[in-house]
């Protein structure tokens, strides 16, 4: 006798939705490969052509695996787009479209409008690098936020135009070298400051805008989940080191990102309706030189007995101190959400992740 099985119905519904049809009776149950049997959704599959240790690939993987599968993505032109979709292959397991460099926000707006028109609740994500977000796609992003589309916009911030070979963007930190902000007799790298995009985005008075780092995946995924639950525009900027562009060892991607947070240069803040509602306190603030020393893009600042280098180091330290003061990042008393507790692991995973 067939009993009412709400769970079974739900499973059937999910199978229909996500394309895994139940096998007909008697058919051999397909043996899942270990890859297929992994206990997480694979939004971004292996075989993509990102560089070794790519922070952006990692960030995109982290975002999609906790956002998917009922999503669709509008992806701006950039490394992420190029390395994931060299026809006829695609690394994505979620519906995904790349249109142009500067229109991810608008493409996502259109997707979302269509979902609304069709009464579907598939969440729309927009992905862009710092070039596509801070710079060329800024207008489309602003329009998307202002029109209050139900879209989570994720900016993978690797602080330069990496796709074209490391040129400065408005997100490139002060004094960093790129191929268009080289250091030389007259220059110490980029002359201008990193644009405070998060503040600009937050000024749209949207429900949620936050900064995350690949060094803190549990925190990152918490932020993604939180944003996914919001009906309205949300924004996440993820600090994603680029071993090629930042000139560090590919194994140090996480270490560099961690130091970026721990020195205060990349504050992990959450802003709701324009007000800072949460920050990740730094348990032990490190000097910015700990962050700079790992990266070739700052190597000109590490020259001993160079007054200009010393001044720029001091400048960057002052910028970090400014962030620490502005956002109250100093977390001298241990806190469950601080830099240390957020990354601590225990047997069986991240304690926060198990909650």
């Amino acid at each position, binding site marked *: 006798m067939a009993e009412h099985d709400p769970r079974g119905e739900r499973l059937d519904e999910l199978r229909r939705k996500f394309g895994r049809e139940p096998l007909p009776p008697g058919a051999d149950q397909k043996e899942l490969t270990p890859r297929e049997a992994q206990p997480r959704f694979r939004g971004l599959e292996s*075989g993509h052509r990102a560089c*070794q240790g790519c922070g952006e690939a990692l960030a995109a993987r982290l975002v999609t695996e906790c956002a998917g599968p009922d999503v669709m993505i509008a992806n701006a032109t950039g490394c992420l787009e190029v390395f994931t979709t060299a026809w006829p292959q695609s690394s994505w397991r979620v519906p995904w479209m790349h249109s142009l460099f500067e229109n991810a926000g608008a493409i996502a707006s259109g997707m979302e409008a269509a979902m609304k028109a069709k009464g579907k609740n598939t969440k729309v994500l927009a992905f862009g690098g710092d070039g596509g977000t801070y710079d060329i796609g800024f207008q489309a992003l602003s329009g998307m936020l202002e029109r209050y589309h139900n879209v989570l916009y994720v900016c993978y911030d690797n602080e330069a135009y990496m796709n074209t070979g490391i040129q400065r963007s408005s997100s490139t930190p002060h004094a960093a070298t790129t191929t268009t902000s080289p250091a030389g007799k007259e220059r110490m790298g980029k002359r201008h400051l990193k644009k405070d995009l998060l503040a600009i985005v937050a000024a749209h008075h949207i429900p949620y805008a936050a900064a995350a780092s690949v060094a803190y995946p549990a925190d990152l995924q918490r932020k993604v989940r939180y944003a996914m639950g919001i009906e309205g525009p949300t924004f996440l900027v993820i600090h994603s080191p680029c*071993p090629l562009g930042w000139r560090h060892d590919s194994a140090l991607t996480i270490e560099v990102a961690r130091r970026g947070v721990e020195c205060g240069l990349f504050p992990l803040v959450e802003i709701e309706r324009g007000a800072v509602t949460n920050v990740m306190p730094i348990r032990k603030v490190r000097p910015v030189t700990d962050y700079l020393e790992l990266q070739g893009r700052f190597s000109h600042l590490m020259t001993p007995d160079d007054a200009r280098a010393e001044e720029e180091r001091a400048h960057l330290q002052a910028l970090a101190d400014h962030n620490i003061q502005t956002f109250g990042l100093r977390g001298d008393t*241990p806190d469950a959400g601080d830099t240390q507790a957020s990354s601590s*692991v225990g*047997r069986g995973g991240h304690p926060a992740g198990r909650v």
Partner: protein
Amino acid sequence: MVILTRGAYARPGTSLDFKTGNWRSGEAPVHVHATAPCAASCPAGEDQQAWFARLQEGDAEGAWREVVRANPLPAVTGRVCPHPCETACNRAALDAPLAIHNVERWLGDEAIRQGWTYPVSAPAADAPEVAIVGAGPAGLSAAYHCVRQGLRAAIYEAAPEAGGLLRAAIPQTRLPRDVLDAEIARLLDLPGITLNLRARLGRDVTLDELERDHAAVLLAPGCQANKAWSIDGAVPVDLHEGLNLLKEFVDHGQLPEARRVIVHGGGNTAMDLCRAMKRAGAEQVTLVSASGLPGPETDPSDVINVVPRELEEALEEGIEILDHTTINRLILRGSRVTGVEVMSLRKLRGEDGRAHRVGFEGTERVLPVDMVIPCIGEEVAPEGLGALIDHGYLRPRDPAGRLTQERVFALGDARGDHGTVAAAIGDGLRAVRALVAELEGAPASPDGDRVGIAPDQLNLSYYDHSARVAAPKLRVEARTFETEIEGDIGRAAAMAEAQRCLSCGNCLACDNCWTFCPDNAVIKTVELARDGSHYLFDLDYCKGCGLCAQECPTGYIRMQS
């Protein structure tokens, strides 16, 4: 033939056709199951990391079973071991080493409370029987491991009770009798063990007989003879040998009276005696030791050989310690000692490259005393062993304890190369393991092929600071001859302390590699893989960036060609 899709759309996940594994230029990640420093340093052969892992999973009984793979007496060692594991613990680089002995003791006590039994089955009735001389920790351990390995064991013990030094020379304040009795009883209850009490070698049974009647003979007689002690030939008339004094005290609770006492030596016996004399009423008890107190001044190889907390407690109780000091001369009034002349000395490397103790002229001073108690160590009592004794000990020719005779092994203090309960227990394990291999004609199982792991091979970013558990302790005023000074930390603290284990060189199942791989090349599996983790490296896609190895907290992943 690839056919173009309209508008050049692509199908999901098809990049799996693009094997990025060939991007790796050199090294690929591998799991390296290293030996955690605690395990590497454990004389008993325990793998503390392994049993902490079970505790971290909340499985106390499983943890205890992991302990007793090597050590059948954790409630004992948790109390009396100087725990080199804690000294070696990598967590010291982060905050403080784990309180391993406290957790081991709790586990041992919990096993007694819960009546947990050894995971051992009865050996076959016709299984070879091994003769074991001595029912001290080494002999008991050997018997236990025989049974684990499917052998039978016949123990010959001169004393009327099993326990050896544990029973004879360790005060109740450190090792309560009920705990000792419970662990020994559990061990001796194992099927396949026969215990012959009051069976003294050379008197009741001979080595030849044992050799004849048994598959092997394991000699664990301990050191029952005091080393001869004199200062330039002078011996006070009322000389009390340290160990004897302690045994008498442990047995009858009696101590000689004295106002000012000097104990000469540097081991746990000396320390126990100092504290017992002080508690018995001596005004001033001074330990004179050629070794040094732990600290920057002292070479690690020359630190006084005492359980650290015992040292700490002794200082609390007012014991004076003159380290790096030796007795030069006894000042006798008649044949009674009234004072000693002491002198500073150091262990220095001589021209021959070996270490010598060198006294410094001009540092001599005289201390008034009523009694000098030598505690400089003991030797094997020669009875029944005859020619096997070499300069006071049964000196084996390999780590397993083999003596020159076939299938005769030396275990425990009698070996003369180490002097802890844990080492004695470990000797039992090692000797039986070697013996079994020999009986089966198999090569000895490789021991120590696992590499070690230092703190700089860990990624300490992933461990939050957490305070080491502090065991309750009797106040100095409340300390008596009977009551155990250090208390039980309890289940909650034990479990919490276990969470502090870094899991050095062993998979913590923390998911870091799985989480951080930008290429999805780390696969998490439900089943435990052969290499002891839940993760596989999919080298078809691994580009060799090294992130997983870099971010592995425990150093379990290394990049290798």
